[in-house]
């Protein structure tokens, strides 16, 4: 609330400041916008502004609203006033011809895409012959439509369209590359399709689901994913410890940080040779020698199922501990030093200081780090494929590596896709539950 501004309004009128306009051009003065529900006499700065500069382009005036701006304030000016983001007053005079042209190119290219697609479908089903070598024409038509859609936004909606242009390309890209393959995958998932056989795709209903239900290796792979995910807790503990050390007052901090980060940079395939195949080699590998030195007879890192699984866990942990460590380190550095100092003054020793000050403060960061780590862990495949190919007896199989082998050995696309889709459903349910639980945990208790 404020007293009404300059001269025009009666002195006792109470006005509400609803925002301000920065005057464009050489004047560059800030003019406050006042409004009053009861009295119309209040200064409408915007009209005053427009009055003193009749040909003023309103397009690039920046309006900051502190309330809701009445739309009639500036004639011809659109005010976006949702939320508290960036507000821009625009004055678009888009001719009808331009709008028509915009609509025409969008619908025209859409129609073109549809026609090409229908022609290709007809050729694929053998109803007509147009001489397409592959489905590229449909792809090109789709790309034309995507470009036309972006351009059309600007043509039809002017300044608003230009704003849409920030998000639209990414949205089209992601939608085209996920939604379409996912729908397509749904069809594949319920069919028997061996890519190497000439018979092509055959719809086989629920056969794949029945096969999955009785496939012990798939359930085994899912169970392995649970075990692999549980290993994250140990990784988290180690990562937290390392982050605390890096956050302490130490010399050569930069060296240690780079050294600790390096495993994350290495490609899992190279790691599976460097560690899995050479360092863990039973006869000549340095780790085997180390084990012999400590008195282990015939060390074997992939012999028994439990040890093999643990070895894969350790190799994966080796690669990804830096990731969690850096996230936790960032969290630690964001904690104000005063808090720990205050705890120290109050007589807390190091251990209590950690458990009662640092750890609770780090809970949100920790949960974010663990959730992201779980997401990455669920994709684990490269190391398993290259080191053990799932063995011994499926003990190290992840879902991804299992499906990879399923495809490589039988080239059955249908069954593999169904397994992947079931996995996706399980992941989505599990992650939603985890996020809900995490949300409840981190929410401040009242």
């Amino acid at each position, binding site marked *: 609330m404020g007293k009404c501004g300059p001269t025009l309004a009666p002195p006792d009128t109470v006005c509400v400041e609803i925002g301000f306009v*920065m005057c*464009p051009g050489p004047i560059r003065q800030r003019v406050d916008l006042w409004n009053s529900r009861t009295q119309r006499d209040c200064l409408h700065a915007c009209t005053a502004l427009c009055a003193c500069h009749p040909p003023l382009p309103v397009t690039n005036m*920046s309006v900051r609203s502190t309330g809701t701006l009445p739309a009639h304030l500036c004639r011809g000016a659109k005010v976006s006033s949702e939320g508290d983001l*960036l507000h*821009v007053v625009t004055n678009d005079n888009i001719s009808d011809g331009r709008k028509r042209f915009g609509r025409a190119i969008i619908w025209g290219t859409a129609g073109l895409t549809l026609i090409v697609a229908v022609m290709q479908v007809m050729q694929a089903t053998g109803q007509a012959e147009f001489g397409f070598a*592959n489905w590229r024409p449909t*792809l090109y038509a789709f790309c034309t439509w995507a470009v036309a859609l972006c351009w059309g936004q600007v043509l039809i909606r002017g300044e608003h369209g*230009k*704003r*849409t242009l*920030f*998000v639209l*390309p*990414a949205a089209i*890209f*992601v939608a085209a*590359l*996920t939604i379409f*393959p*996912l729908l397509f*995958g749904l069809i*594949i998932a319920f069919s028997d399709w061996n890519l190497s056989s000439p018979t092509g795709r055959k719809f086989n209903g629920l056969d794949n689901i029945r096969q999955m239900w009785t496939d012990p290796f798939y359930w085994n792979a899912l169970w392995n994913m649970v075990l692999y995910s549980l290993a994250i807790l140990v990784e988290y503990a180690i990562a937290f410890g390392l982050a605390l*050390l890096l956050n302490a007052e*130490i010399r050569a901090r930069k060296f*240690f*940080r*780079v050294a*600790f*980060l*390096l495993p994350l*940079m290495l*490609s899992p*395939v*190279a790691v*599976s040779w*460097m560690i899995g*195949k*050479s*360092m863990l080699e039973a*006869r*000549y590998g*340095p780790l085997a*020698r180390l084990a012999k030195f400590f008195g282990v007879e015939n060390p074997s890192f992939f012999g028994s199922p439990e040890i093999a699984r643990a070895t894969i866990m350790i190799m994966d942990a080796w690669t990804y501990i830096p990731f969690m460590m850096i*996230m936790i380190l*960032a969290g630690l550095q964001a904690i104000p030093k005063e808090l720990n100092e205050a705890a120290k003054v109050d007589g807390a020793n190091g251990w209590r200081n950690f458990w009662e000050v640092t750890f609770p403060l780090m809970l*949100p960061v920790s949960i974010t*780090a663990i959730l*992201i780590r779980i*997401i990455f862990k669920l994709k684990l*495949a490269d190391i398993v494929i*290259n080191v053990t190919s799932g063995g011994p007896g499926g003990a190290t199989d992840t879902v*991804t590596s299992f*499906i*990879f082998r399923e495809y490589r050995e039988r080239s059955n*696309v249908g069954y593999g*896709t169904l397994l*992947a*889709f079931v996995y*996706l459903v399980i*992941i989505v349910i599990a992650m939603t539950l985890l996020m809900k639980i995490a949300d409840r945990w981190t929410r401040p208790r009242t």
Partner: protein
Amino acid sequence: MTAQDLNGAQIFRDSEADRGHRAKWWTSRIAIYGVLILWAIICLFPIYWTITTSFKMAPNVMKGNMIPWVDYQPAWLGWKSLGLSPDTIGNESTVRAEFMKRFMNSVIISVTSSALAVALGSLAAYGLSRFNYRFGFMKNADISFFFLSQLILPPVVLALPFLVLYRELALLDTRVGLILLYTLSVLPIVIWIMRDQFGSIPTELEEAALVDGLSIWGAFATIILPIALPGMVAAFILSLVLTWNEYFFAALLTSTYANTLPVMVASQTGSQGISWWSMAALSFAAILPLIVIGVVLERYIIKGMAAGAVK
């Protein structure tokens, strides 16, 4: 109280606790550096092992020699098999040509897809941090969720549909096909990082720019982009690392023409009776660019990964 008593009892002296303090400080220092050095060895030893092995010969491998020049004489054996040793570098070498082809594939694919992802992702993140959108029923929060939810999607779900689609589109075994997929897979991470970046830039900057007569895209390009550049570099480097290392899609979707370095390394590991020295040379050549990036641009990588952690 006599003067002698006063002399005998020192008034100011270190208490038990204070004298214990120094010893405790030293032990804690030793423990901290001990753990740090131990972990540094754990992190660096595999890399050291790979480098040294690439200069070993068969007897050195079997004897388990570790330190070059001390317990074995380094030889160029591994690098010779790659065609990269000093005496073979001038000659024709099919292995080197193969390696260079894969290397260039990896460079082209990872750089292009990272650049594409950073461009698309930055624009989207900027838009989402500044304007209100409504695409059908989706508002800003929903659009953000739509982008970020791609992170959960495991690659295996998309892999087989893409395999079939690419076969129909004649994109199998092409660089373009891999670039598209890699861009898709790193886009959510880029948006995650960049949303954070743009969120920390005050909107007053654009307001001032708009008042000065710039369009919204002009303001973005000339004012906001330079400020957000470090964040974009971080996102780019992180994408580069992820796409360079990607193996799963590359193994499925490429065969002879477009396969990347990880696929080449993996295909060599599979063969029985591989010579350690040449595998070590190959592995090391594959990870060397990333080690360089990691050492030189460590700051950006950490910045990128820390972006989402602290809100």
